[in-house]
C-alpha cells in the first residue's frame, strides 16, 4: 500500500459574510481516487465551501492547495474562477446553471474552451488547425454525452431537457474541462429514486473511467452512504465530524445536528 496522494488540501478555511461566519476553520483533504462527501443541514456552509475553492468567493483566511500529479502544487487562493478550472477543479451547481439557449452539445463544447486555443483569426479564416480542433472538440464532447447517457439529445436546447437530464449535463460539462477533482453540488436533488440509483452508478463509473477524484455535497443519505469513501459533516460553518460512512452515521453530534435540539430533550 502506498501512502494516499492528496489532490485537494484545504487548511484553516474561514469565510465571513459581514458578521456571519459561514465557514470556521475548516480542514478538508481529498485523496487521489477517492469519493468524499460533504454533508450537513441547510445553511451549513457546504456550497460556500465550493464557492471558496473555485474562486467565486474570496475566503477571509486559510490555505487551499491543489496537487496535480507530475506538476508543482498550486495555491488556489486569489485565483480567478477560470484559472482554478484550468488547474483541474471543475464543479456543478446546486441550482442548475446551464447555458439554457445553447444546445446540449454546445454546453459541453464550451467547457472545452480552456483546453483548446483557436482564436479570432482562426474562427474567421477556418484554417486546417481550427477545423481539426473543432472536430476534436465535437468528438470529445459527444463521447462525454454518451457517457452520461445524453447522446440522443445533442441538438436539443439545454432548457428543453428534463430535470434529471439537466443535472447529468452539468456533470458532462464539468468533465469536459478535464478536471482531476470533480465537485458535485447536490447532484441528486430533485431526482426520483430510479434516477438517483443510476446517478450512483454514473458517479462510480466516472471516477474509474475518467480517473478523477470526487467531492460531493448531497442530502440523499442513501446515496452518500453507498458511494463515499469518507464523509465530512458541517453544521453552522463548523466541522462537527469526519470519517467513514459508518463512523459518521454513529456519531452523536451528527445525529443531533440533523434531528435538532429536540433529540436531546
Amino acid at each position, binding site marked *: 500500500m502506498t501512502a494516499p496522494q492528496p489532490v485537494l488540501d484545504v487548511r484553516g478555511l474561514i469565510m465571513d459574510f459581514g458578521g456571519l461566519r459561514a465557514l470556521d476553520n475548516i480542514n478538508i483533504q481529498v485523496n487521489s481516487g477517492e469519493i468524499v462527501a460533504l454533508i450537513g443541514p441547510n445553511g451549513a456552509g457546504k456550497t460556500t465551501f465550493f464557492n471558496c475553492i*473555485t474562486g467565486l468567493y474570496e475566503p477571509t483566511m486559510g490555505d487551499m492547495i491543489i496537487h496535480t500529479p507530475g506538476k508543482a502544487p498550486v495555491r488556489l487562493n486569489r485565483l480567478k474562477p*477560470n484559472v482554478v478550472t484550468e488547474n483541474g477543479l471543475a464543479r456543478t451547481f446546486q441550482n442548475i446553471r446551464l447555458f439554457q439557449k445553447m444546445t446540449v452539445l454546445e454546453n459541453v463544447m464550451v467547457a472545452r474552451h480552456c483546453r483548446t486555443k483557436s482564436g479570432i483569426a482562426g474562427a474567421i479564416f*477556418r484554417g486546417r488547425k481550427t477545423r481539426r*480542433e473543432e472536430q476534436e472538440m465535437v468528438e470529445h464532447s459527444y463521447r462525454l454525452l454518451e457517457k452520461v447517457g445524453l447522446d440522443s439529445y445533442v441538438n436539443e436546447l439545454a432548457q428543453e431537457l428534463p430535470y434529471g437530464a439537466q443535472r447529468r449535463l452539468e456533470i458532462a460539462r464539468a468533465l469536459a*474541462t478535464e478536471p482531476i477533482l470533480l465537485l458535485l453540488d447536490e447532484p441528486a436533488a430533485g431526482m426520483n429514486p430510479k434516477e438517483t440509483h443510476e446517478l450512483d452508478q454514473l458517479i462510480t463509473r466516472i471516477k474509474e473511467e475518467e480517473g478523477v477524484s470526487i467531492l460531493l455535497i448531497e442530502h440523499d443519505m442513501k446515496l452518500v452512504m453507498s458511494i463515499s469513501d469518507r464523509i465530512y459533516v458541517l453544521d453552522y460553518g463548523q466541522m462537527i465530524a469526519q470519517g467513514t460512512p459508518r463512523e459518521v452515521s454513529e456519531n452523536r453530534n451528527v445525529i443531533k445536528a440533523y434531528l435538532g435540539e429536540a433529540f436531546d430533550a
Partner: protein
Amino acid sequence: MKTDWKPLMQRVSSEMIKSIVVSLWFVFLTFPLMVMKIRPLDQTIEWRWMNLVYVGVGAFFLSFVWRYLMARKERGSEKDEGDSWQKRIGMKIRSDKRISVSGLIGVGIFVLIFPFLFSSYQTSIMITALMYVMLGLGLNIVVGLAGLLDLGYVAFYAVGAYFYALMNHHFGIGFWAALPFAGGLAAVFGILLGFPVLRLKGDYLAIVTLGFGEIIRLILENWNELSYGPSGIAGISRPGFFGFEFTLQQHTVYLFYIMVALVALTTIVVSRLRNSRIGRAWIALREDEVACQAMGIDKTRTKLTAFALGATWAGFVGCIFAAKTTFINPASFTFMESAMILSIVVLGGMGSIVGVMVGALVLILLPEYLRAFSEYRMLAFGASMVIIMVFRPQGIISGIRQRYEFRKQPQQEVSP
C-alpha cells in the same frame, strides 16, 4: 340554447368594460398634452379636441389586441407554437440545399442589378440601409451574442468617421488606406474603454457606455482645434477606384457595390465567429456569467474581444459614412443613433444574422418610403422596442444554433 349564450355575453361585456376603462384612462392621461397646445407667439392655447377621440378609440381597440396577445403569450409559454413553426421552416431551408442555394442566387442577382433597376436616389437609400445592416451586425456581436448592453456604440462609429475625415482633411489620405485603420482605431478605443467598464454588471455597463458615448460626442462638439466643433468637417473624399474620375451617380453605384461586398464579408465573419470557440464563449457568457467562468473561460478577455470586435465594425462603417456624405459633424453621433442601432438588433432578433438584416431593412427603408410615417419613426422605434420585449423577446427572427449529425459509431462521425 340559452345556456350557451349567457357566459359568452358576460365575457364580451366584461371585455368591453375593460376596454372602455382603459380607453377612458388614456383619454385622461393624454388630455393635457394631446389636447392643449401653446402657441408660443401670443401665448394662447390651441384646443385640439379631435385628438381626444383618436386616443379614446385607439386605446379601446388596442387594449383588446394587448389582452389578446397577453393571453396568447401566457398560453404560448406552455407550448411554444410560433417558435416551432419558425423552426420548422428554418430547418427546412437548412436541410434542403436546393432552397437555400437558389434563394441565395436569387437575392444575389437582385442585389447585383439593383442600381440599374432603381434610381440613384434609391440606391443611395439602400446604401444607408446596408450601412445599418453592418452596424447592426457589429452591435449584434456585443449585445446579441455576448449579452453586453452597449448604449454608446455610436462613439466607435464617430471614431471611425472622424479618423477618416481628419486624415483626409489634413494628409489627403484616401478611403481605402483609411478603412482598415478606422476599424483598428475603433477597436483600440473599444479596448481602452472596455477594460475599466467590463467588470460592471449588465445594467451599470449600459449606463457607463452611454456616458462614454456622450462624452465623446461632447468632446467632438467642443474641442474645436481637433474636430472643428459643431460645424464639422466638409469636403471629405469619396472612395477612389484606381484613380478613375467618377460622376456623382457612378460614385453612388460604386459605393453600393462596396457596401454589398462589405455586408457579405461581415455576414461570413459574424456567422463563422458565432459557431466558433470564441463565439460559443460569448453566448455562454451571455447565458450565465458565473457558470461560464467556472467552465474555464476568462470573463474579462472574452468580453473585451466582443467589445473590440463590435467596435471595429462601427469604425468601418464610420469611415464609410464619412466617405458617403463627404461631411460630418457631431450631430450625427447622438444617443438616438445608438438607440436606433440597438432597436435594429432587438427588433430583428438578438443573436440572429438574418434577423438583424431584416430589422435594419425594415427600420431604415420603411420610414424612407412611407414619408407620412417618417415623422413617427422614433415613436414607432420606442414603442416597438417595448412591444418586442414584452411579447417576443427573441425578436422577429430568433437565432438558430448549429446542429451536428452523428452516426452510431462515435469515432467517425461529425458533419457539421
